[in-house]
């Protein structure tokens, strides 16, 4: 589905805070409040949830800090009060309910990569050409279009944003850096 997010490019925030030259990555830490988040009892992931982007990915105009969608303030389930939207990556890369943003030198250890490294890479770009260990990523099923009979459609490279973001990965072996 195509979602009308409300927000601005993260690059505006990054320019305002002026990170040091040694910053190579941006790390995002999510709220971990057991009073309102019963899911924290699960041991599937280590908490708090962490995500990260390479600095050039974070500076890309398509990387958004979002505060709302469909003209409404962001609901809790969608990552209130502020979340990331990185449209060319799988959804878990878009950190939600952000409470801390850090500039770091080393590639941050992201939650799903820690939990299942053979399944979830740091980059996790939408890529129909690289199969997941157990299933193909060449097709996808759109949400909200017909329930049970929704047919699959071909996945697009970088989720359709190849023209805007492919240059970030020029020369990178995306099978290795999945």
């Amino acid at each position, binding site marked *: 589905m195509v979602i009308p997010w409300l927000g601005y490019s993260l690059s505006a925030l990054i320019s305002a805070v002026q990170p040091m030259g040694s910053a190579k990555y941006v790390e995002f830490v999510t709220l971990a409040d057991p009073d309102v988040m019963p899911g924290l009892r699960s041991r*599937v992931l280590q908490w708090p949830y962490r995500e990260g982007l390479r600095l050039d990915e974070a500076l890309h105009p398509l990387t958004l800090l979002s505060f709302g969608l469909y003209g409404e303030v962001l609901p809790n389930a969608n990552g209130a009060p502020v979340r990331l939207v990185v449209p060319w990556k799988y959804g878990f890369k878009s950190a939600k309910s952000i409470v801390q943003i850090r500039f770091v030198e080393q590639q941050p250890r992201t939650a799903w990569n820690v*939990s*299942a490294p053979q399944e979830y890479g740091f980059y996790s770009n939408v890529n129909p050409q690289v199969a997941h260990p*157990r299933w*193909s990523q060449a*097709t996808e099923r759109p949400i909200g279009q017909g329930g*049970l009979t929704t047919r699959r459609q071909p996945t697009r490279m970088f989720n359709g944003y190849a023209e805007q973001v492919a240059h970030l990965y020029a020369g990178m072996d995306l099978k290795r850096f999945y």
Partner: protein
Amino acid sequence: MSLMMRGLLWVAPGLPAALYWLWAVQDVLGANPVEALLRALGEWSLVGLCLTLSVSPLAKWLRKPQLMVWRRRLGLWTFAYVVQHAAVYVVFDMPGLALVVNDVLQRPFIAVGLASALILSALAATSYQRARIHLGPQRWQRLHQGVYVAAALSMLHFYWMRSGKNDFADVWFYGLWLAVLVGWRLLRARG
């Protein structure tokens, strides 16, 4: 027992599937109904398998041999759930048989699922007395011990599926249930 009561008991194991199909048609299975349906049918297949293998120990333990009639009944229902699970995958999930064949050949997780389903279909096809007479009791018994292979393959299929989310609580639950059932049979075989 009245005929109606007997009829009801016969169709009762189909209730979970019936509900899920109803909810699928009503489109109340959430944002990804195909996945919800596929996973529900898969998990109920596993429940069916565990229940089927529980009949014999339960009948012995409770000293109620009349419970044994549930063994074939639940076994066939388990097969019915497996067929629906596979059908949802082939019909609703994959856009074309070529992709299904590709999946089977390239993805061991699908291949073991298919292998388990094939074993269960052989068991379903030979579940009535006629097959037992035709095969002879020893060959029939040997064939039907294939259920343990099917169970192991199903657990592998389930484990590989759940490792995608590093979420093994259910794998432990069904694994333990099956381990107890197999363990009971091994102890009985030892005498």
